[in-house]
């Protein structure tokens, strides 16, 4: 079966204002809204569109983390994923561990494609997709803004510093989703009801032969240095005079 694996990370919602705990041991996450990592939502949308074009038959959503991750997997199922796998663990999951788990699942599920968000908006690491591709020994097309599947190959347009780069890759492969790949669909109420009946498998990392390791240990968290508010100028002349005084224009 032609199958696509998609990552679904549970993260603090995009709109939550992040604050560092006063004792510097982390950021405040108690009682804040949690969501699917926006880049993973884009990854899932792309997988669904490939399936809807008849180029894939099944979309499998994977989340790694504590029991609450099932909320985000249900969202993924409501969006249209066919089934979900929850790798349940309370351990700290570094990108290296996430990639090893995804690799085991990619092999178990014999997928044609793994699509993951280019980065998670909590740790901003931007690593898992690339690491998965390396462990799997397969191509990676990161920061994708356009994906075209042609048989056992794909043509992927990537957002790079210089502009837009196009790569041709052999499948199976890893694609990481950038912002402009698509606009994810909204979930409709009947789909939420239907999602409750879709299969959600829960497994332990050990069942996949992976032990989570923490190699970059958090020592402390600090709030960022604040820029102080400057001055308001009344007109363009005053602005130009001020900038000239500093040699900036």
């Amino acid at each position: 079966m032609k199958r696509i694996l998609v990552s679904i990370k549970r993260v603090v919602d995009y709109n939550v204002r992040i604050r560092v705990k006063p004792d510097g041991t982390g950021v405040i996450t108690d009682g804040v809204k949690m969501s699917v990592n926006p880049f993973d939502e884009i990854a899932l949308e792309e997988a669904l569109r490939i399936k809807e074009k008849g180029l894939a038959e099944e979309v499998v959503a994977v989340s790694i983390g504590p029991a609450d991750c099932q909320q985000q997997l249900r969202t993924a199922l409501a969006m249209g994923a066919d089934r979900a796998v929850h790798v349940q663990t309370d351990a700290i999951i570094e990108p290296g561990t996430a990639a090893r788990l995804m690799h085991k699942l990619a092999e178990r599920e014999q997928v044609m494609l793994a699509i993951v968000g280019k980065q998670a908006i909590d740790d901003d690491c931007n690593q898992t997709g690339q690491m998965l591709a390396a462990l799997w020994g397969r191509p990676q097309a990161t920061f994708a803004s356009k994906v075209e599947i042609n048989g056992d190959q794909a043509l992927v347009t990537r957002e790079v510093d210089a502009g837009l780069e196009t790569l041709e890759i052999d499948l199976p492969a890893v694609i990481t989703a950038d912002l402009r790949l698509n606009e994810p669909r909204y979930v409709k109420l009947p789909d939420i009801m239907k999602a409750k009946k879709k299969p959600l498998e829960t497994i332990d990392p050990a069942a996949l032969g992976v032990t989570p390791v923490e190699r970059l240990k958090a020592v402390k968290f600090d709030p960022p240095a604040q820029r102080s508010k400057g001055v308001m100028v009344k007109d363009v002349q005053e602005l130009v005079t001020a900038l000239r005084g500093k040699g900036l224009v």
Partner: protein
Amino acid sequence: MSKILIVAEHAGGKLNPVIAKCVHCATGIAGAEIHLAVFAADAAAVAAQAAQIAGVTKVVTVTHAVHANPLAATVAPQLAELAQGYSHIFGPSTTFGKDLMPRVAALLDAPQASDIMAAESATRFKRPIYAGNAIITVEVEAGTRVVATVRTASFEAAGAAASPAPIEAVSLSAALPTHTRFVSVTSARSDRPDLQTAKKVVSGGRALASTDNFKILYSLADKMGAAVGASRAAVDAGYAANDMQVGQTGKIIAPDIYLACGISGAIQHLTGIKDARTIVAINKDPEAPIFEVADYGLVGDLFQVVPEFEKLISSDS
């Protein structure tokens, strides 16, 4: 002692100027020996530039026809082989470095610290998380090989060396996969300075309201010798090209002056400019969050302010 290998990104025969910033970052590790690695079809010109950076003690070149367009899939196995003799492997936090370095880290079974703002020691690094709303300090066990991408906006460029470092060509045995093939790159590149390294940047937001209106920013930028950037909203709306995006998921920049025109200042945008020396904000909404971080703020209609600003800086007074 630490031995640091830095990937010397380049294009069109020119070393990317951010590499000198990566070298500066590496000098934060006391007593480290710093080498640069050039992967190219013809490495001579880039290696010569790399050898001129102060603090670099050797430039290693790996020449292969496939590196005419260096791709993570083909550079990573060679870099991982080369990395065997090093304790730290650094690359810039450009799209090239972000693509390549995690692939290398996985091949080496090494942890990666992304976007480091400081290498406080051989084992301790600072990096932003949550779009820069928190700074985490992370530590690895002594003796752990570490891969990192460097947040170049956090560093000044290292200076020029008194005498150039030696250049050594190496040949590697790592097999190069053929499963990933470069097709093309299209660039909206102009004669303007490169956004990533420009000293002056003029940037526009959704308020520009059209591609055509962006011309007033191009005109001003040309007068100032500035690069042009854009907010995510402006890029999503199609007013500006994707490579102009500044912010959490676009370019992180540190110009001497950043002129934000019609940009409200979402936190994801501010994270891309917080190291700018001087931020100037022009916005008609006095409540726009951009004014909270701006050194100079002017409430006004950018369609009047920008042309007037251009006219005034063109006059001699």
